[in-house]
């Protein structure tokens, strides 16, 4: 190759210098990005290599379907509850189990709390530092920060003295010689655009977000019975509700429900008075950084999430709708059917797996996971020390999922675009008012910053939606319905001999589906297609590139040795790599290594 045009309309050119960003995870499950830049340091080719999925059948085949949620909760550190929920949905679908109304409300509350927490933590802990220069914050004038804060929201923590205290605290921390959360970064890079006072404001809120996180997790503890790995149950939720007395231990009582209500209010305050104003303030300094759109202006997809009606997983029920948009045509939204063998298929032409028919896609119910690690002839380096991967051959442990043969972007931006195109009033209002405030057209959403903005707006939407779901649930409980689980089909003797089911929904980071095949009361096959597989997907049999690869193209790098722009765009997807590695080591070695060849 030097220059080729992919079927989905992107021009790739691998003639220039190759830059490799390889985060080191000691076990499986890392993401490696290689790009080629031209003489002007503009990215002209991008290669996303992931190693995160080994097929759930490897751990689940032959096990009890009612236990599957507990295993799927462990495949990923951050998405625990989401996998557990979709596992329950898939098994309930297969066994035709209907869950009670309260169970549906509690699940929605847990998912909404997950969205709220995940988006917030993602922004402040992972992504903000791609836009905010911590070292610059140390030289800020706290009075200027105070003025800025008071000009953008009514958040009470806004005095010059408060910001001075925080600044001193961070200075002391940095001076203690360890930099802590702020080590291993590219401070001072010309890619940072915020003035010092805005940097100090954002860093201050980073610390406040750490505090706020303590509150929101309590919702999961109350309804999930335990944390950090809440309990789930095929047929409903494992908690009982007892609002009239305090006798029954372990039952959800009024005191806990009042606590949930308070946490919801606090979430709304923090998001609307801190997160959203921060997002707008930061975005206003980066409006000319319009890169990273990739597939978002072309193909996006959402399975739909938050069923308003128990057991109804259609657009009649989804609070955020199901749909697919092709070629950026917002006037037509297609329905996505997870059961149709022609719609969702996974390809392995460029993935380290074998299929009976190598270039044909397989629907997840027919999915197989047979590893086949082989490297292409144009590889540079060796098998154990890859300098540059050969993307013409197999190059990723991720399969390439496609919808009707199309590579799709998934995630908050995709959900909001589908909702917007479907005329969703709440989403239209949020999107339109934000764009108006920033003086930007809707096409501005098709960018890294658009993805980041959509996540923030969805965080706010989720927190407000928790209020409505909670109030509806309380009304139902007060009307006398305290049922949380349907155990009619708990016993395997009541199950069909051979049955299939699917659970679809939206993890915070995008479309997630679990497909299950139950035979003789045991799991026969279990496949999950996770959001990062869609977004970080390698090429398919036709040569279509996935969302990460597409989003990196055309981005100018200030300095290829400091790939801040690559991290910024990849972070905007909120990558979810089942990175099992967290093994403690004595020295703080870098997590990401940049190599330029």
């Amino acid at each position, binding site marked *: 190759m030097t220059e080729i045009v992919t079927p989905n309309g992107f021009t790739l050119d691998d003639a220039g210098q190759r830059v490799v*960003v390889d985060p080191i995870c000691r*076990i*499986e*499950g890392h993401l490696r990005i290689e790009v080629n830049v031209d003489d002007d340091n503009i990215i002209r080719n991008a290669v996303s290599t992931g190693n995160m999925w*080994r097929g759930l059948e*490897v*751990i689940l085949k032959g*096990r009890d379907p*009612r*236990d599957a949620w*507990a*295993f799927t909760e*462990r*495949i*990923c*550190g*951050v998405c625990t509850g989401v996998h557990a929920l979709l596992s329950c949905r898939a098994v309930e679908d297969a066994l035709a189990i209907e869950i009670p109304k309260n169970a549906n409300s509690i699940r929605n509350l847990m998912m909404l709390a997950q969205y709220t*927490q995940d988006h917030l*933590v*993602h922004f402040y*802990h*992972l992504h903000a530092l791609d836009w905010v220069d*911590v070292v610059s914050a140390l030289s800020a004038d706290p009075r200027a920060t105070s003025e800025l804060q008071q000009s953008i929201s009514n958040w009470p923590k806004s005095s010059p003295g408060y910001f001075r205290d925080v600044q001193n605290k961070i200075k002391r*921390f940095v001076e203690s010689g360890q930099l*802590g*959360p*702020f*080590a*291993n*970064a590219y401070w001072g890079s010309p890619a940072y655009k915020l003035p010092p006072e805005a940097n100090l404001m954002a860093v201050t809120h980073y610390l406040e977000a*750490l505090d706020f*996180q*303590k509150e929101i*997790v309590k919702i999961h*503890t*109350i309804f999930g*019975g*335990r944390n*950090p*790995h809440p309990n789930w149950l095929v047929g409903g939720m*494992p908690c009982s509700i007892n609002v009239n007395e305090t006798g029954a*231990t372990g039952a959800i009582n009024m005191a*806990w429900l009042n606590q949930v209500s308070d946490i919801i209010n606090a979430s709304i305050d923090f998001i609307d008075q801190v997160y959203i104003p921060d997002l707008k303030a930061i975005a206003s300094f980066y409006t000319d950084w319009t890169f990273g759109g990739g597939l978002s202006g072309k193909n996006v997809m959402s399975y739909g999430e938050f069923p308003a009606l128990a057991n109804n997983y259609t657009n009649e029920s989804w609070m955020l709708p199901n749909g697919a948009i092709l070629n950026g045509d917002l006037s037509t939204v297609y329905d996505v059917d997870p059961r149709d063998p022609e719609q969702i298929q996974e390809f392995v032409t460029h993935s380290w797996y074998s299929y009976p028919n190598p270039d044909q896609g397989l629907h997840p119910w027919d999915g197989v996971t047979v*590893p086949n690690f082989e490297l292409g002839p144009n590889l540079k380096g060796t098998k154990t020390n890859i300098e540059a991967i050969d993307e013409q051959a197999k190059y990723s442990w991720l399969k390439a999922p496609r919808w009707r043969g199309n590579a799709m972007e998934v995630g908050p931006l995709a959900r909001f675009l589908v909702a917007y195109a479907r005329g969703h009033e709440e989403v239209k209002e949020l999107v339109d008012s934000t764009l108006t405030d920033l003086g930007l057209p809707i096409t501005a959403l098709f960018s890294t910053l658009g993805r980041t903005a959509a996540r923030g707006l969805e965080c706010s939407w989720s927190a407000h939606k928790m209020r409505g779901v909670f109030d509806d649930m309380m009304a139902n409980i007060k009307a006398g319905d305290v049922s949380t689980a349907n155990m009619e089909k708990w016993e395997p003797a009541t199950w069909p001999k051979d049955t299939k089911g699917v659970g679809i929904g939206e993890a915070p980071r995008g479309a997630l589906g679990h497909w299950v095949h139950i035979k003789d009361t045991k799991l026969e096959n279990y496949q999950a297609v996770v959001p990062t597989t869609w977004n970080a997907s390698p090429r398919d049999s036709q040569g279509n590139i996935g969302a990460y690869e597409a989003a990196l193209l055309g981005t100018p790098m200030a300095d290829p040795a400091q790939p801040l722009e690559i*991290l910024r765009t*990849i972070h905007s997807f*909120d*990558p979810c*790599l*089942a*990175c*099992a*590695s*967290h*093994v*403690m*080591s004595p020295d*703080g070695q*870098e997590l*990401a290594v940049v190599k330029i060849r």
Partner: protein
Amino acid sequence: MRKTANQPDVAGNWDTLVLGIGNLLWADEGFGVRAVEHLNVLYTFPDDTRLMDGGTQGIFLLPWVRGARRLLIFDAIDFGLAPATLKVIRGNDVPRYMGAKKVSMHQAGFQEVLSSAQLSGEFPEELVLIGVQPEVLNDYGGSLTENVRRQLDPAVDIACEVLRDWGVDVQPRPQPLPADELMSPGALDISDYENGRPVVDGPSR
């Protein structure tokens, strides 16, 4: 299929937190979780001591770490030791670092949690890490290797010693732990987990 304990335990402040971390789906990576489970099987503790299976929750464990006055951690460690070697690390010797270049929240490892706790100004007064050098990590769906499993008893003995030094009333369980008080859902209990492992063909797992 066993039921699990369902006692809502709203995040508060504990005097002592015993935290097992790691991924039990990846062989010796599961050491920390298995060790805290083993401790729970053998001993009882006062109400202000919390045993927790932290999994690989990374930064999401921060609220609990910040709420603890004393923190005892079980984990797999990479100190370049011989496989299955136990090592006890105390106080400031427990590594903590973070980096802004991480690509995913999953890379926000536990060291980052400690570092964030420190930054937030709520750091445990006492900190002890009981670690084991893993022998095998890349066996998806596998359990602890024999050598690492043999370290569960010694690790738990060390933990009891540490906790008693802290004045925690550690008592052997008078009766075996009932199935519905297991830390994890029954299917993840080490024996069910191992016995139910599917036989799947494939060159690498």
